[in-house]
């Protein structure tokens, strides 16, 4: 009965103390929850960054391989084209030399072969 009377008289103090305690516990828990969420978000962003860096590497490698294959293909085609032109030129040169005997003499002289008169 005595306790009850005392409680009835001082309930405001007790309630305010309990409210303060409860509020501070809630604030601390909310802050911790917020920090935990931020840390989880950071971990997620880290994984995304690692994945994106792998994507950058993959894209770069694919592009480099594509450019390399294209360049090699073009170089080989150009060499084939030049060889064909050179072959045609050789045939034309044979005809030219066969028709013009003086040109054979000139070429032999250019090669350092002396004509014996």
């Amino acid at each position, binding site marked *: 009965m005595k306790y009850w009377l005392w409680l009835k008289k001082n309930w405001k103090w007790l309630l305010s103390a309990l409210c303060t305690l409860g509020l501070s516990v809630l604030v601390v828990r909310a802050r911790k929850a917020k920090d935990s969420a931020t840390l989880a978000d950071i971990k997620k962003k880290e994984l995304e960054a690692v994945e994106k860096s792998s994507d950058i*590497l993959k894209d770069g490698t694919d592009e480099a391989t594509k450019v390399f294959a294209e360049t090699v293909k073009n170089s080989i085609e150009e060499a084939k084209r030049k060889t064909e032109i050179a072959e045609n030129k050789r045939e034309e040169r044979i005809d030219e030399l066969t028709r013009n005997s003086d040109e054979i*003499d000139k*070429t032999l002289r250019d090669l350092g072969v002396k004509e014996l008169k």
Partner: protein
Amino acid sequence: MIFLLSLAFAEPQYQKLNAGDVASFDGRLLNDEAIATMISQCEFNVEQCDIQNDLQCNMDKAKMKYDFDILNAKYKSLEYKHETLMKLKDEEIEILQKHSNINRSFWVFVGGFTLGTGASLVTYYTVRNTQ
């Protein structure tokens, strides 16, 4: 010995001959077509050599560019990863530092001590007043 010397000092030469003429030195008689073929083949070989050189040069350049591009891609990838992770780690460190703050721990200790003492005193006076 004389034969060997004559071979060593022999110089390339040719002589125009008509059918039935007598050659003034030993050698091979070729008609114009054969000589034309030899000359043009020689010129073709030089040109072919240039073409092969160009091809090899282009292939080497392409390989070097490929290696450079691969290294560049690796560099960009690692640079992005490094910069992003460093920023995130800085954020993480900042948050974790708040939790491991020595001053904060001290004030938590002081607060807890004060709260505990206060609670004890309140209990004591409550019991005393109610008796």
